[in-house]
């Protein structure tokens, strides 16, 4: 990716802002999108994909500045089992 300077801080900001947008939209997203992977850029849902890999390939090819994020359309949280009982979970 010659000529494209990627800032980790900018990327993290993009991820955080996209997440806030995504969570606000989540209850109203179409049922057909459930379980799919939403590609987001600048607080907009660009497209839904069946797999994280599909979304990632398109995102990497389309956005060389890497300013995007991918969120799965689900309200279910992951249970970490043993770990979550042993270690306090803060946002990592």
């Amino acid at each position, binding site marked *: 990716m010659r000529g494209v300077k990627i800032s980790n801080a900018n990327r993290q900001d993009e991820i955080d802002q996209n997440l806030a947008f995504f969570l606000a939209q989540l209850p109203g997203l179409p049922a057909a999108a459930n379980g799919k992977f939403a590609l987001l850029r600048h607080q907009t849902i660009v497209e839904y994909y069946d797999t994280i890999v599909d979304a990632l390939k398109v995102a990497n090819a389309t956005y060389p500045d890497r300013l995007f994020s991918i969120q799965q359309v689900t309200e279910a949280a992951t249970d970490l089992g043993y*770990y979550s009982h042993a270690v306090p979970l*803060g946002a*990592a």
Partner: protein
Amino acid sequence: MPCLWGLHNNSQVFLDVGVIDAASLTTPAMPGVGTGAPTLFKSLVDTGCQRTMISANAAARLGLTAVGKIPIQGVGPNITYHNAYVFHVAFFVPAVAGGQMPGSGAAVAHVLPAPIHGGEISSSGFDVLLGMDVISIGSLKIEGNGAFSFSF
């Protein structure tokens, strides 16, 4: 079917695994046997964990790029969002040649073909929390004599 084995401590099973970045892919990855030399990390095998997770330290060491966030639920009702990564997990299986005893030769890396969409955890004595998304591809056997084996 490749098989690896080791000892457990009657409360936990630890296993060294390799982790390879998969987030920069633009074409389908071609993992398999012996592709490169993945960085090794200590993992805790946790059958109660739904998704494989990686420590912040390991993610930084590998230069992994977060692709989004994953909702994680702990003991209580609260959900926290953790940075998510896409990576491959690799197992190292001792290469046993004819007439050789297990453990006396080199290890062969077996990179699992399906990328893992895992989240970030804080480091706590291990760097990878090996969840059911990986464990369920094979057979995990915990034995009363202190040994365990995993074939996949």
